[in-house]
């Protein structure tokens, strides 16, 4: 639970929306409806999902925090807004969003959503896709379209927000989003302790991680490196102190920061992150409880069911029949389609 906060710093609601509507229209006009076009953010993850066609026109989404609504726990923001700027606007009202917190200063909201990766707090805050309440985007036909709504709960029609997050801009370009915000906790404390251990009896399960998750009610982050385990505790001061004391008996001690995530990501089953990190054979920082290992080198190619892959291709064909949106990008780039005979198995 968060302390009280002031909402005095958020932008006025005066003429900003009118200006903003003009920016959205200008963005749609820039995207157009004919020529190949690439949407550019901070280019901090530019090497992912194929290679951008350098001959395409370049556009950038509108930038700016449109409206901070702490009493709604929502924020409306242009996709071109740097993550840092958004974080500062929210910090002023005691809130945060689940987009990566330790991002490159150039990284933008739209870029983070186009990639769709969670940050160090994904265990607590969930993946970015869960926080997008409304999206305004430009279609391949250059039209402005909207999905979702500026409320925290919504099941009105098919949720296009889900398809656009992680789509690398291949279905449409996000212009503006409404994100769900959460209070910044009263106390945050990183601790560092001994590395995870693999139980030889059940090597497929990270035993220490399981016991950590049992010992702690809801850690905000569990990060495993080859040599250390980092835990982020958040909440009421006394609760953090009590859980830190428990961890102290297992060799953990306070530290000012957790490790930075590494550039490459490997997916694995939840609960098997440390094992997957060790198996990668390279340096890693694994996100415990969410099935992600970040590493210094690319991991094995991710697998996708062949029928699901076919659905992916049909989505692209229908939403962008001429292939003009972010040409060169492909959400299936670097993936391996699984034999359809494997279907019907649970994993």
């Amino acid at each position: 639970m968060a302390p009280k906060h002031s909402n005095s710093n958020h932008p006025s609601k005066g003429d900003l929306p009118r200006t903003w509507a003009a920016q959205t229209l200008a963005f749609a006009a820039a995207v157009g409806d004919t020529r190949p076009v690439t949407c550019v953010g901070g280019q901090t993850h530019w090497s992912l999902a194929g290679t951008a066609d350098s001959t395409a026109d370049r556009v950038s989404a509108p930038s700016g925090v449109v409206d901070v609504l702490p009493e709604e726990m929502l924020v409306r923001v242009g996709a071109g807004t740097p993550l840092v700027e958004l974080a500062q606007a929210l910090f002023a009202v005691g809130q945060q969003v689940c987009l990566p917190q330790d991002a490159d200063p150039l990284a933008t909201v739209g870029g983070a959503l186009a990639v769709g990766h969670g940050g160090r707090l994904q265990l607590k805050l969930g993946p970015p896709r869960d926080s997008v309440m409304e999206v305004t985007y430009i279609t391949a036909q250059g039209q402005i379209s909207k999905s979702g709504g500026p409320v925290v709960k919504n099941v009105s029609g098919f949720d296009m927000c889900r398809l656009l997050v992680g789509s690398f801009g291949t279905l449409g370009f996000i212009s503006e989003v409404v994100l769900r915000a959460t209070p910044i906790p009263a106390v945050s404390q990183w601790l560092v302790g001994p590395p995870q251990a693999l139980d030889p009896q059940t090597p497929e399960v990270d035993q220490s991680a399981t016991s950590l998750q049992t010992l702690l009610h809801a850690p905000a982050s569990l990060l495993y490196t080859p040599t250390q385990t980092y835990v982020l505790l958040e909440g009421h001061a006394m609760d953090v102190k009590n859980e830190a004391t428990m961890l102290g008996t297992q060799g953990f001690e306070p530290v000012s920061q957790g490790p930075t995530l590494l550039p490459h990501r490997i997916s694995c089953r939840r609960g098997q992150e440390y094992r997957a990190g060790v198996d990668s054979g390279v340096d890693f920082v694994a996100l415990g409880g969410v099935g992600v290992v970040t590493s210094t080198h690319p991991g094995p190619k991710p697998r996708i069911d062949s029928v699901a892959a076919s659905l992916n291709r049909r989505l692209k064909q229908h939403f962008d029949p001429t292939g003009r949106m972010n040409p060169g990008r492909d959400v299936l780039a670097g993936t391996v389609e699984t034999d359809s005979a494997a279907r019907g198995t649970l994993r």
Partner: protein
Amino acid sequence: MKGSRHGSTKENGENAALGQASGHTMAVDLLIRELEESLGQDRVRADRIEIGLFSGDASTFDLGQAGLVCMPRTSSEVQTIIEACNRHQRPFVARGGGTGLAGGAIPCGERPVVIALSGMDQILEVDVSARLAWVEPGVINLDLTRHLTPLGYHFAPDPSSQQASTLGGNLANNSGGPHCLSYGVTNAHILAMELVLPDGSVAMIGQDGGDAVGYDLRGIVVGSEGMLGVATKIAVKLTPNPPAISTLLASFPTVRQAASAVTSVIANGYVPAAIELMDRNAVKLIEDFVHAGYPRDAEAVVLLELDGLEAGVTATTKEVSHLMTGAGAISVRCAADDAERMLLWKGRKAAFGAISQAQPDYYLHDTVVPRTRLVEVLDEVYRIAEKYELMVINVFHAGDGNLHPILAYDAREKGRLELVHQAGREIVEASLAAGGVLSGEHGIGVEKQAYMSLMFSSIDLAQQDLVRTVFDPERLSNPGKVLPTGATCAELQYMNHVPDGVWA
């Protein structure tokens, strides 16, 4: 493979499909025979009583007519049914507990095959280390949580129908519930699924860990009301049970003050596990029905639950109580023990059943408004009810801004239902005017299909229709729902004129 032609359905003389629809009889016979051979006669039903049972759901809409009811037990049987439907160009509708309130499971169009999934009710795997479970779609929501309780976990979405609604239905509707305020709706708790697509092919979508590969197909299927395929295995996230829980009941002299108190709690940075608001009418009916201990003299009560670790819960209980008092609460009571807590929740969960004491029928609405607009929209809801001389009972997820005005009426009174629908439309319009949305957890179904254009532009709707085209180009899976099309209206008109006993 077993079964003779038409089997038991014909033997009991009540086959609704056979011998009456002139042009299609041969094709229909063939479809029935194929399905009986695959599933067995006892799991392919076409007698009039069962057709009637599976032609409606918990909504007030009486538009559907099932052609045939199939009761698969495995994924491959679901696939077999859908492949047969494709061969015969027959629409199909998957169905769980039938508890939907927006008509999402009503068989619309050319008398679809109903795929009743309640027999696929196995919890296939529980993996505590991965905090996930694989389940079949017919598992009842509360049964899963009961199964997980000894392990220290639960399934967080807890719709009021959780004693009867299934995980497959929850997935299709992206269901909510009181505790979704802090834990999120169903979409945040579904990791992956095996999906039989409308053409009969099978895809595994989503992951049981890690980043999404490709587009988030899982995310678009959750909440798509069965129009993009049928989930036959579902991986759900397990949520650890909180070590400490505090449940508060605050009573207020006016509904406005109660709603303002809710806004104040959120605006001050607290995210309780649940905040429910019940008005005077609701309190009276609940007290008469289950004696939950709600104060009868209150114009409104707020049921608020906090959970987490002990110190945080204790401190926040004091702070939130203080906020409630500051907002005008007459009293704030904290449940002393589990028994009292359960009783307070029993009252909330029994609210819909309690309405039968006042009127034989009710229409439960579902819209969401910004939390800061709750007071004014509630005022408008009462004004609309008064205008149409309808009894309104407000029991809703106030923390989410998720309104549930209940219009109680007697359907035997001529013209009453029409008034209820008119009032309902005005409530929807008032919610949209306040910046809200059509539905927070019940979905669109047939109920709000015509309202979609109030919220979305033709461009928005065309984009959504593209998704439908990608997954289901033949429009066989649960036709006539969600997206407003001319064809849908025509289908509904058509259905109203199909005589009983004819599977056209």
